[in-house]
């Protein structure tokens, strides 16, 4: 068994993997050590300097490297062995290792899918909280708890989305700050960022909650569809999270059998008189009520 310590990053892993591949070290002989500091006297840890320039570099499809880099974001006890095994097999000419139908490839694609999904969850379920206009620092802040290491690779989306608006996202592990021009990524997340991300809710939140409650159709209550699409683990960081069980129990208790939101049902209604002829009387035009 051969210890392969590295700094835990994909770049670090790639350097070591390239060297091991060149030396013909098979996957079952490698013990990946992402903690990096466990190097003992007897470890022969390959580095970039160990690369033998006289031997041809292993030829790998570029697409595979992209897949491996993305799959490396998948959090689990040992995320690196599978990646090296696939790299090894493809370098040996066994390209099936990259395919979803393969025994290793299916694992790879399962991880890729989970990582893509988690990046999508970031784009979808993260909520920014505006900070007071005169406050120093980012205009928008957010706290998010992703299940995989996607913050660095997936946050560029918000720079496209929000233009010059400055924002900050903090997670339990890392953080990212957009100053209007450049992204600043930090791992671990500075405590100051984490504190900022927990800025209390402002009044504007009430409008969103009113919308959420009203756009829900109680006649169509469907808890399982909700939980499939919006996993329960995200509820606690969503402003509408606490509303969900409340709306569900109201709907289940049969408060109303039609689709109307409770907040609307409680208000007085207004019928509109039939227009006299084709040209509609101005009385029917609510613009005049302003």
């Amino acid at each position, binding site marked *: 068994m051969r210890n392969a310590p590295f700094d835990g990053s994909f770049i670090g892993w790639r350097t070591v993997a390239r060297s091991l591949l060149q030396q013909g070290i098979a996957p079952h002989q490698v013990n990946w050590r992402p903690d990096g500091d466990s190097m003992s006297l007897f470890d022969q840890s390959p580095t970039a300097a160990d690369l033998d320039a006289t031997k041809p570099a292993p030829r790998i499809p570029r697409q595979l490297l992209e897949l491996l880099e993305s799959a490396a974001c998948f959090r689990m006890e040992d995320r690196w062995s599978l990646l090296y095994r696939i790299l090894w097999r493809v370098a040996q000419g066994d390209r*099936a290792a990259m*395919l*979803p*139908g393969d025994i290793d490839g*299916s694992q790879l694609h399962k991880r890729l899918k989970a990582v893509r999904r988690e990046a*999508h969850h970031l*784009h*979808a*379920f993260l*909520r*920014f909280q*505006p900070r007071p206009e005169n406050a120093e620092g980012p205009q*928008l802040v*957010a706290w998010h708890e992703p299940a995989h290491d996607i913050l660095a690779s997936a946050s560029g989306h918000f720079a*496209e*989305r929000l*233009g010059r608006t400055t924002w900050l996202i903090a997670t339990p592990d890392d953080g990212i700050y957009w100053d209007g*021009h450049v992204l600043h990524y930090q791992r671990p997340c500075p405590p100051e960022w984490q504190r900022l991300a927990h800025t209390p809710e402002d009044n*504007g939140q*009430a*409008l*969103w909650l*009113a*919308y959420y*409650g*009203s*756009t*829900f*159709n109680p*006649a*169509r*209550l*469907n*808890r*399982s*569809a*909700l939980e*499939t699409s919006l996993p329960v683990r995200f509820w606690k960081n969503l402003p509408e999270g606490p509303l*969900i069980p409340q709306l*569900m129990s109201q709907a289940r208790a049969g408060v109303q*059998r*039609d*689709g*109307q939101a409770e*907040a*609307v049902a409680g208000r007085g*209604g207004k*019928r*509109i*008189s*039939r*227009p006299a002829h084709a*040209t*509609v009387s*101005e009385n*029917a*035009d*609510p*613009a005049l009520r*302003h």
Partner: protein
Amino acid sequence: MQLIEKLTVLADAAKYDASCASSGAPNRSSKGKSGIGSTTGMGICHSFTPDGRCVALLKILLTNFCLYDCQYCVNRRSSDVPRARFTPEEVVTLTLDFYKRNCISGLFLSSGIIRSADYTMEQLIRVAKLLREEHEFRGYIHLKTIPDADPLLIAEAGRYADRLSVNIELPTESSLIRLAPEKQVRTIKQAMHSIHQGEHQAREEKGSPRFAPAGQSTQMIIGADATDDSTILHTAASLYGEYRLRRVYYSAFSPIPQSPNTVPFEAPPLLREHRLYQADFLLRGYGFEVGELLSGPGNLALDIDPKLAWALNNREHFPVDLNRAEPAMIARVPGIGVLSAKRLVALRRQKRIRFEDLTRLRCALEKAKPFIVTQDYHPQQAGSESLLLRQQLSETPAQMALW
């Protein structure tokens, strides 16, 4: 009336429109620019309500005052609902605020008919224009098109909106006459035609302004009248064909407060709606024809999905040998989708397909088993009667019906 009260009323008034797509827009970015908003073609569902429907856009009416008396609509003039009206500026403020919070990817704006069709359409356009021009908003905008509005107004709407939609409302003309006396199939289709023309022009003529790049969609209400699924699907197929619609939405009729006697007061037929979406997907993505899914008048089966129903009625095509069959035929196997079919074809270039490969591809094996052959597998049930198979594969066991 306070903004929050208006929002409460006008979101409730808008929710019966099923469309929530924020996909299909071109790539737009605000990086390094003033203004906000981006689109990538892929839609984002920012939340889901307890009905399982996604929240992608701020879906509201500009006003729920309405001169029409469509029986299925909660906002019909004879309905005793609270009424409200936003100013265009209020809609703009709400859209930008929700957008910054990352609650939505854009706006879906519709309206009750006030004063006239043209006037109403102008008001909708004004909101979109304010967002795009004054606030440099690059997010998604979906505008409802008022059928009788001037084609010039529709052309203007297409310059600001990513998507336009005109609702066909009901699957047949006779139902429309009965339940929506002020609406006419002729003008609805004229509006669809105007949008289709606009799209065509923007695509064919270089330098012409952009026009609704995410195309047009429509909605049909299911279960407010007695129309069967066969008629509904034929109507949908003809709309897809004639106007190149991106989507037809099927909206199970939800009972509304103070329901008139002309429409049912029952729980919305959600499973029927689901089967229609499945059938619609087979029409758009799998090359099925309506006649294959339903050979005559009638409804889709509720206990099995439409692809399985087709396979059970067409056993002569099965079992399909996954190592030899055309990709399109593999995608017709129940339990195997278009994506899995593509993956199987890629895999069989490397090796012979075995049964365990299907497990890894996460195909719905229980459904697929009777219909496939792999290198190491031949279905025992290949000779089973379709009726027996149906009993085994049905999603609602016959026993349940006794309850």
